[in-house]
C-alpha cells in the first residue's frame, strides 16, 4: 500500500514561502511526476514528503496516517537522490543492504534480499565493487537498488537521471518505468524535464512558484491545459501564444496553438502570414520559426520533410478545434 495525500501542505524558510499550500491525492501504485521550472518548489515538496524537511503547515497522510511528526525512516518511503548519495567506502552489497542492516535484519536475510534486488537490476556481477569502480548508469542502479530492497510504500526520485548522458537517460527512463510497473509500488518523481514527465508519468503535477498549477494525466495536460503556464510548459516545441485583435475575435485575452496544430500552406492567402526566419530539418520533423509580423514569432511543426527554407513566405492555418483560449488572468476558457 502506498496512498499519499497532501492537505494544505505549506513550507516557508524564514519569510520566504516555498510551498504555498499543496493539496494532492496520490493513488496507490501510481507513478506521479512533479515537474516545473527550477525554483518552483518541486524538490522541496518531495523532501517534505520524505521527512527531510519539516512542514510549516498542513498534513501529509500516508495510508491514512498523518506523518508530519514521523521521522523519515519510519514513514516507509525510500529515496533516490540526484547525486545518488552512495556510501563511497561500502561495496555495492553494503550500500544496498545498509537500510536492512539498520533495521536489524539477520545477515543471511539481508544477503538474500540484496541479491534479489541486484538480480532485478542486473547488478549481480558488481556486488563486491566500490561505487567509484562503477559507471554512472551502474551507480544509478545501485541507488535504485538501495530504494527497492526495503520494499517501501513509495519511491521518491529526486531528478535521478539528470547526471546521465542523453542516450543513457532514455534507457534508464524506460527501465525505471518498467521496474515501477513490475513492482506496483507508488512512485513520486521530480524532474524539470517535461519529456521525462510526459513519458514516465501516470499523472503529472505541474508546479510553479510553490503552487500546484495542474494535476492530471499527461494527455489531459497536453489537450486541456488549465492555464497559460501549463500550456507553455507542457509540449515541445512550446505552444504559440497570440494576443490582441485575433484573440479578442474569439472572446479571449490570449489564444494558444501548438506548433503541430498549425497547417503550413506554401502559397495560401488565408491564415497567418509570415516569413520563415529559421527552418530546422530533422528528417522526421521540420520545425519552422516564422516571423509573422504583428503576431510575433510563431513555431510550426510538420511531420516529415518539407522543403522550405529561410526567407520563404508561408501561411499558417490554425486547426480551429485545437485553439486554446485563455482569459486575462491566464486561466483557460472552456467552450
Amino acid at each position, binding site marked *: 500500500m502506498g496512498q499519499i495525500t497532501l492537505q494544505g501542505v505549506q513550507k516557508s524558510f524564514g519569510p520566504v514561502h516555498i510551498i504555498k499550500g499543496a493539496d494532492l491525492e496520490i493513488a496507490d501504485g501510481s507513478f506521479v511526476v512533479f515537474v516545473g521550472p527550477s525554483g518552483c518548489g518541486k524538490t522541496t515538496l518531495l523532501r517534505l514528503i520524505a521527512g*527531510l524537511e519539516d512542514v510549516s503547515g498542513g498534513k501529509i497522510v500516508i495510508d491514512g496516517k498523518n506523518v508530519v511528526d514521523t521521522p*523519515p525512516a*519510519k514513514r516507509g518511503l525510500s*529515496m533516490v*537522490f540526484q547525486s545518488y*548519495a*552512495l556510501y563511497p567506502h*561500502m561495496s555495492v552489497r553494503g550500500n544496498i543492504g545498509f537500510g536492512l542492516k*539498520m533495521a536489524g535484519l539477520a545477515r543471511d536475510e539481508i544477503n538474500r534480499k540484496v541479491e534479489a534486488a541486484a538480480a532485478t537490476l542486473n547488478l549481480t556481477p558488481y556486488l563486491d565493487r566500490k561505487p567509484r569502480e562503477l559507471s554512472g548508469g551502474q551507480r544509478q542502479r545501485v541507488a535504485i537498488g538501495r530504494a527497492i530492497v526495503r520494499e517501501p510504500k513509495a519511491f521518491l526520485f529526486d531528478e535521478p537521471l539528470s547526471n546521465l548522458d542523453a542516450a543513457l537517460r532514455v534507457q534508464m527512463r524506460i527501465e525505471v518505468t518498467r521496474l515501477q510497473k513490475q513492482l506496483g509500488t507508488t512512485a513520486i518523481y521530480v524532474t524539470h524535464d517535461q519529456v521525462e514527465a510526459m513519458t514516465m508519468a501516470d499523472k503529472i503535477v505541474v508546479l510553479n512558484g510553490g503552487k500546484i498549477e495542474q494535476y492530471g494525466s499527461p494527455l489531459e495536460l497536453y489537450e486541456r491545459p488549465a492555464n497559460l503556464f501549463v500550456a507553455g510548459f507542457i509540449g515541445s516545441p512550446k505552444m504559440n501564444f497570440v494576443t490582441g485583435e485575433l484573440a479578442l475575435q474569439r472572446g479571449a485575452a490570449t489564444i494558444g496553438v501548438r506548433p503541430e496544430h498549425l497547417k503550413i500552406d506554401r502559397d495560401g492567402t488565408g491564415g497567418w502570414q509570415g516569413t520563415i526566419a529559421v527552418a530546422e530539418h530533422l528528417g522526421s520533423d521540420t520545425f519552422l520559426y516564422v516571423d509573422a509580423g504583428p503576431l510575433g514569432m510563431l513555431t510550426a511543426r510538420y511531420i516529415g520533410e518539407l522543403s522550405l527554407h529561410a526567407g520563404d513566405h508561408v501561411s499558417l492555418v490554425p486547426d480551429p478545434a485545437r485553439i486554446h483560449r485563455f482569459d486575462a488572468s491566464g486561466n483557460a476558457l472552456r467552450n
Partner: protein
Amino acid sequence: MATRQTQTLARSLLTPAVGLLFIWMIVPLALTIYFSTLHYSLLDPGSESFIGLENFRYFLTDPAFLASLQNTLVLVGSVLALTILLGIPLALLMDQPVIGRNFVRLMVIAPFFVMPTVSALVWKNLLMHPVSGLFAWLASLFHLTPIDWFNDLPLFAVILIVTWQWLPFATLILLTALQSLDEEQKEAAEMDGASAVSTFIYITLPHLARPITVVILIETIFLLTVFAEIYVTTGGGPGLSTTNIAFLIYSQALIQFDVGSASAGGLVAVVIANVVAFFLVRIVGRNLEA
C-alpha cells in the same frame, strides 16, 4: 612538456633549485656523519680523533637512550591519541551552526599560533604552578592538595601542553573534512533508518579515515622532535622522566659538550624517525590511496 627540447629546457631550469636543496641537505648530513665518527668534545678542543663507531656504541648503550626512546614513543602516542580523540568531537561541535561560529573557530585555532616556548611558559607559570597556578587555585577551592605537575606527573604535564598545542591542528583538518561530507549521504542514511550514532560510525568515521591519517602522519613528524616544551618546563627531568630523543641529543651536545656522541644520536634519531614512518605508512597509509 612533451618534446625532447622542452624536457632539456625544464631540466636545465630546475637544476639550480634542486642543486641548492641537495647541497642544503647533504652538507649537514655529511658533517653529522663525519662528526659521529670523531672523538669531539667541546671541553677539550683540538683533540679530535677518529674513533670509528665508538660514539654509536656509547650512545646506544647509555641507559638514558632506552629511557628517552620510551619517553619519545609515549609522548608521540599519547598526543596522537588525545588530539584525535578530542579533535573528532570538537570538530563535530564546530560543524554545528551556532551563534558566533567564526569567533569560536578563531579561538579554537589560536593555540596553534602561540610559540611553543611561550605556551610552555604560560602553562608552567600561570596554569600548572603548584603555588600560584590556576589549577592550584582551583584545587584549593575544593580543599584538595594542589598537584605539583612537573614533579609528580612530569611526562603527563608535557603531554598535556603538547596536546593543547596540536589539538587545533587536528580539529581544523577534521573539521574541513566534515564540511566536505556530502549532505545527501547523511540524508540517505537518515532515510535508511540510521540513528545519529550509526550515521557517525558508518558514514562519518569512514569519511574521516583519510584526514585522520593525514593528522597522524604530520603530527608524528613534529612530535618526534618536541623540544621547547621540555626545555622550558622540566629540562628533561626529574631524572630522565621527560627526556626524549631530541632532548637527549641536545644534552649530549650542549650540556655534556660531546659533539661526537650527539652526532651519533642525531643519526640514530634519523633512523628511528624512518622506522616509525615506515610502520605508520604500513598501518595507516593505505587510507591515502584514492
